[in-house]
């Protein structure tokens, strides 16, 4: 399945990517699994997305926890804790 993955703010700058399309094997249907795949890239990816790091994930524009299911065509965004207001 294909996912559109977006990065924002400090994470966008640090990872050097604003947006990409990621192809995952079918059955990798949770946020946690996408993150595992991204961490296997090593370097800043492994560092910034490590389990203890403070980042947020949204699936189809809704804040999402690690267990939230992802499906073909979904938009997943990964970003630092928000600081608006």
């Amino acid at each position, binding site marked *: 399945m294909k996912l559109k993955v*977006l990065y*924002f*703010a*400090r994470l966008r700058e640090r990872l050097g990517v604003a947006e990409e399309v990621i192809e995952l094997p079918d059955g990798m249907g949770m946020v946690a699994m996408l993150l595992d795949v991204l961490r296997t890239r090593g370097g800043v990816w492994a560092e910034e997305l490590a389990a203890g790091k403070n980042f947020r994930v*949204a699936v189809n*524009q*809704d*804040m999402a926890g690690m267990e939230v299911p992802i499906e073909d065509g979904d*938009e997943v*965004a990964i*970003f*630092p*804790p*928000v*600081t*608006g*207001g």
Partner: protein
Amino acid sequence: MMKIIVSEKDFDIGAEMTALRAGNPQIGAIANFVGLVRDTNGGSDVASMLLEHYPAMTHRALEAIVAEAGRRWSLLDVTVIHRVGELRPGDQIVLVAVASRHRADAFSACEFIMDYLKTQAPFWKKEQTPDGARWVEQRATDDQAAARWSE
């Protein structure tokens, strides 16, 4: 009823308050919050601030926060305006205005919306200081402020 705007443009508080009140003589109370860019933060001078957001999500997130406030309190109308792009000290960042019959509902909902906006709406601030640019980090007190509403 709600009006939600995410824009690079500045807003006019007086005009927004007039619009909020217009045509609803049941409104007895408006609680209102305005956030401004301060000229210092964490001990450094701030020359300017860039507000980034996640356009596809921002409006939706603000709508969900306002809708939740409407479920918790008796509200007549709400306006939320959030700026994005480059801002300077003294500039207005955010307006949350809540109209209701009585003040307790307006105050609680206004504070609730701000607390949730600070932890749930996808905005990020980057400050220009004499030491270079830096991303603002979420304050622990913001998480605590949002958490108290779920008690």
